[in-house]
């Protein structure tokens, strides 16, 4: 097996043996169970005249609640990616664990790419698995189907991968705690900057709008989150938001349009840059 795949396998194996995967699976099943129960309650809500909510309203409420629940999932994924990626290389350098392996015919780029790949596999599986479970539970409870489930998984996974890439880059130079905290703060700041950009849109203030745009370029997590939101918006909501004009765009839990193609192209470039920087940083580090 090539060294890249060996390091990827080790990363997955470590998460599994340290019971990180088990913990995530149990917590996810709990959340899916509770949320399915909650969504089911929407279908039993009665109006003042004693009749049940019509299916259109149930779908409307469900779609908006699903966005909030997905925000929690994307948060869990981003936090986990940052916390796990932060010490991915630094802790093994500090403990000496990497020393004997780096004395083998192994390139440092193979270590970086392998670890990224291993964690990327976990992030993608978690994003796909948790989304599949949650969407199935919602469909069972309310009959609602998200308009673009595949895109939803891709955007949520990409958000986790972005945090993982940032955490890994920091891990090549900084201690695990420092790298993890910086990645988390950056994720929160990017989200807040996105909100500021929304306010700028609502107020038609270009300076505030630029804050959102620049943050999307530096760390594309919020831009990707907006893609996930768009993938969950039913047409009726999109129509209402578009009718509301700029005010309809000033909300971190709504997205009127899918992410622009130029932004998605930048995301691909951004991932390439992060990995290249990580490889360069680790290759030039003296151990």
């Amino acid at each position: 097996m090539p060294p890249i795949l060996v390091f990827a396998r080790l990363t997955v194996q470590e998460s599994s043996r340290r019971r990180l995967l088990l913990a995530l699976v149990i917590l996810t099943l709990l959340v899916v169970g509770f949320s399915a129960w909650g969504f089911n309650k929407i279908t039993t809500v009665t109006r003042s005249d004693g009749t049940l909510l019509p299916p259109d309203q149930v779908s409307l409420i469900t779609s908006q609640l699903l966005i909030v629940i997905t925000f929690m999932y994307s948060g869990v994924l981003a936090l986990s990616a940052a916390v796990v990626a932060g010490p991915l290389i630094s802790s093994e350098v500090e403990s000496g664990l990497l020393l004997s392996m780096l004395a083998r015919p192994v390139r440092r780029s193979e270590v970086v790419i392998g670890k990224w790949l291993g964690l990327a596999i976990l992030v993608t599986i978690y994003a796909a698995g948790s989304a599949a479970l949650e969407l199935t539970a919602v469909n069972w409870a309310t009959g609602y189907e998200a308009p673009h489930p595949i895109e939803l998984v891709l955007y949520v996974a990409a958000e986790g991968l972005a945090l993982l890439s940032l955490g890994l880059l920091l891990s090549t130079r900084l201690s695990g705690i420092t790298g993890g905290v910086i990645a988390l703060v950056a994720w929160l700041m990017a989200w807040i900057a996105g909100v500021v950009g929304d306010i700028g849109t609502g107020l038609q203030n270009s300076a505030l709008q630029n804050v959102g745009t620049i943050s999307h370029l530096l760390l594309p997590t919020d831009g990707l989150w907006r893609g996930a939101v768009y993938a969950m918006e039913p047409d009726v909501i999109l129509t209402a938001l578009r009718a509301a004009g700029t005010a309809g765009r000033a909300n971190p839990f709504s997205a009127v349009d899918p992410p622009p193609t130029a932004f998605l192209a930048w995301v691909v470039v951004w991932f390439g840059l992060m990995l290249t920087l990580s490889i360069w940083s680790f290759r030039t580090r003296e151990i």
Partner: protein
Amino acid sequence: MVATPEKGVAAAAPAIHTVDLTKRFGSTEALAGLSMTVPRGEIFGFLGPNGAGKTTSVKLLLGLLRPTSGEAWLLGEPIGDLATRRRIGYLPELFRYQGWLDAREVLALHCELAPLPRSTWKEEITAALETVGLSERADDRVSTYSKGMQQRLGLAAALVGKPELVFLDEPTSALDPVGRHDVREIIRGLSARGTAVFLNSHLLSEVEQVCDRVAVVDHGRVIASGTMDELLSGTAVKVRVSGLDDSALTKLAAFGPLDDEGEHLTFTKLDIERVPELVSTIVALGGRVYEVAPRHQTLEDRFLQLLHEEEK
């Protein structure tokens, strides 16, 4: 004068050859022009006090650090050559292995990274575990191992693939006397099959027992090197004495480097012809002599003498 290995002679090239290898960390000179040659199949002891530059040298040779200047070759190839690393084993001073794997899995990982043909793994792993005495705990998670067992595992990892050159950085730091004895036997076994061993240690008696040749490094410079016989040609004199104050001890410095251990004074390099003069001087200074024991220098005597001369 040291010669640069020529191309095409790698098979006959020494195990290690360095020319003016230097390493600076900012304003600190960790290694100041290391030039040495370690022949194939030889057990080479690299001695020095803590912070002398021993581990830095090993890491430079293994490509974990980049030299500030100078050149070096391992098995005839420039340091950093990936293919050469297939033929090298390494036990780091800071040894730690995946606690969530068992010993067999850790060694399989090293077989895979070496890389060795999969068909040889089982035999390699069994032999390595047997050599270091870990066969009975081979299926236990490494996280349950004591520090000494982890060091044995590290040694096993360094042995897989029958390397031509093995770097052992303080290989017995976590071992008990039995473990140290075992490691000496392993090192002798490696040498017997033609493997060169670069033994980095500050445990002088250990080095003295196994090494063919040693280099003493201090403040990043080699201050002495040679075979054990060449280095330990002098005589040391141990004197049991009382009644000497600090000023008297200072006057005794005229008899060469002195290791003061309270009641016992060891003159680490003193010609045996000067012993009567030494005794009469001690008596004249008010000292009471109970015992005078001339002996061949040990590595510790020589080491202390060299460091003493360095300080001057």
